[in-house]
């Protein structure tokens, strides 16, 4: 390496080291977060995870809840799906591979890779089975392989839909099946040029006619050029029968998880917002997704706050931008979303679980946990509650990073961890009503401080 390179790296390291700390924490959560003025130091904050094995440690759940690793040694588990017989499908893989365009990308890629797993991409679906219902998933088989970074999963009747990073495909599925009996059938191609944000989130409409696919932007904030953003940062509605699609909602920078709200049948999403305008900008969010709605990216954030980094600007689009419903905090990297049920215990009966992968560009780091956003009358109500923590230890080491979360109707939350390549199962206390209608109180073990 040249002397200049060494000198600039040394200077960069010194500046990075000096970027810690930083004042009081503004209110970052809820429907009306405080939004500080955009700011940017000489270098962006980068504080990536420092991985360590779990050893005897375990993620921490609320009192009475039990945490079990039901599968380890996976190949980058991202999203999970609980099948009607209780089997769990795990989508494994790593996508993307957008080329480095600038010296910055080369350096940032090296740093960011330290905070993730080095395991080879699985590109497969693994099926986990607990045949006797004792909480141990003794059965494990590869349901399908040779996929292309599968992520979103949805079951509609006898069709299992899988969102690869470049296409929506389906398998026929009958309950009890442990292996796909045929190669997947392509339903629709998905935008995959560059694939800066490669994950394709998936949810099916309650009647099964439509599939909603979350497609992330091709950049942080248009730095790969506007043409690269065609068909990006939006949610597609795909006709399950024909594969035809239309943009359902736009301006969603990176909609990483979609879910249908029980009861209302409404589509909700968690969305990862933009970086490099400060540790407390822009909050990632949870929102009801309006048909035809525009949520700001790239022109503005959190409604009509103009992002000056985008040229040409578009005041007309900014004026139409919708404010999201609920801020989760900046840079938490929300990647999982699942609506709860009374089977999760009275405290967590109504609301949504959100898996937060954790920040790489914030000091102090944020996320690295699963939170519960309580709902009342179908809308978020109150601050998020920590549900599963301990992924980032007091010692500064990171042992896991949560991605997909899925509520098992039997009273458990399934959490995929793509750093330790583990699937965690967090079981509600015994005595919590299982499958009972809401309003039936759980008797014992549910009281917590």
């Amino acid at each position: 390496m040249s002397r200049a390179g060494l000198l600039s790296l040394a200077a960069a390291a010194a500046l990075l080291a000096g970027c810690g700390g930083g004042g009081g924490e503004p209110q970052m959560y809820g429907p009306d977060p405080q939004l500080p003025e955009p700011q940017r130091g000489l270098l962006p904050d980068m504080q990536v995870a420092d991985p360590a094995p779990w050893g005897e440690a375990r993620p921490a759940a609320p009192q009475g809840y039990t945490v079990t690793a039901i599968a380890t040694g996976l190949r980058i588990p991202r999203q999970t799906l609980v099948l009607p017989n209780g089997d769990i499908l795990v989508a494994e893989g790593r996508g993307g591979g957008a080329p480095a365009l600038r010296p910055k990308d080369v350096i940032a890629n090296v740093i960011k890779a330290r905070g993730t797993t080095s395991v080879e991409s699985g590109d497969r679906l693994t099926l986990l089975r607990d045949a006797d219902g004792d909480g141990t998933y003794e059965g494990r088989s590869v349901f399908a392989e040779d996929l292309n970074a599968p992520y979103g999963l949805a079951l509609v009747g006898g069709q299992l839909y899988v969102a690869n990073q470049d296409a929506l495909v389906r398998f026929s599925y009958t309950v009890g099946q442990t292996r796909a009996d045929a190669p997947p059938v392509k339903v629709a191609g998905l935008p995959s040029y560059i694939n800066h944000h490669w994950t394709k989130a998936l949810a099916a409409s309650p009647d099964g006619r439509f599939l909603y696919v979350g497609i992330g932007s091709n950049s942080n904030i248009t730095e790969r050029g506007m043409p690269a953003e065609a068909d990006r940062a939006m949610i597609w509605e795909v006709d399950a029968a024909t594969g035809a699609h239309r943009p359902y909602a736009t301006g969603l920078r990176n909609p990483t998880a979609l879910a249908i709200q029980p009861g209302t049948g409404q589509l909700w999403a968690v969305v990862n917002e933009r970086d490099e305008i400060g540790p407390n900008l822009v909050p990632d969010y949870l929102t009801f997704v309006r048909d035809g709605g525009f949520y700001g990216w790239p022109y503005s954030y959190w409604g009509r706050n103009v992002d000056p980094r985008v040229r040409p600007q578009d005041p007309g689009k900014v004026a139409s931008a919708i404010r999201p419903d609920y801020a989760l905090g900046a840079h938490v990297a929300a990647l999982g979303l699942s609506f709860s049920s009374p089977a999760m215990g009275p405290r967590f009966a109504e609301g949504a679980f959100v898996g937060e992968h954790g920040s790489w560009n914030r000091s102090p780091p944020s996320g690295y946990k699963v939170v519960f956003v309580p709902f009342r009358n179908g809308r978020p109500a109150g601050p998020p509650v920590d549900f599963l923590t301990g992924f980032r230890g007091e010692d500064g080491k990171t042992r896991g990073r949560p991605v997909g979360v899925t509520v098992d109707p039997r009273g458990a939350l399934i959490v995929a961890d793509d750093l330790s390549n583990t699937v965690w199962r967090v079981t509600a206390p015994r005595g919590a009503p299982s499958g009972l209608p809401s309003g039936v109180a759980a008797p014992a073990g549910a009281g917590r401080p």
Partner: protein
Amino acid sequence: MVAVPDPSRAASPLHAMLLAWTFPLYLGGLVADIAYARTYEIQWLNFAAWLIAGAMVFTGLALAWSLFEAFRRSFRDRRTLIVLLLVAAMFVVGLLASFQHARDAWGAMPGGLVLSLVVTLLSAAAAVVLILAPRPTHHRASRGEIRA
């Protein structure tokens, strides 16, 4: 009789080359910045970032050489010191320009363009001062001077 320039004050050709190479690179960065500012075509900004990174490689080498020269002359030669100061300023401003060009999209502007302009002017000034240093006459140049 015409005074013969002191060969010990002459710039080494390699030193001059290193310094001279920074100029077209910084200038290219400046031109690319202007093109980006006029068109919003992001590729110009990528070009600028790489051109400045390339310039920084030679700036670093030129800075090391200038420091060596200044030490060798015990910080007494005025022209050597001016070159050292200009190259040091170029390194600092070039580093700032590199960081500014690492910002995304229009976030690099207008600071990136201003820094490109300043560092290009510094590069030109440093090269002119160094290269206009009196040249040694051929028969007086000792091997030692050329090696330095």
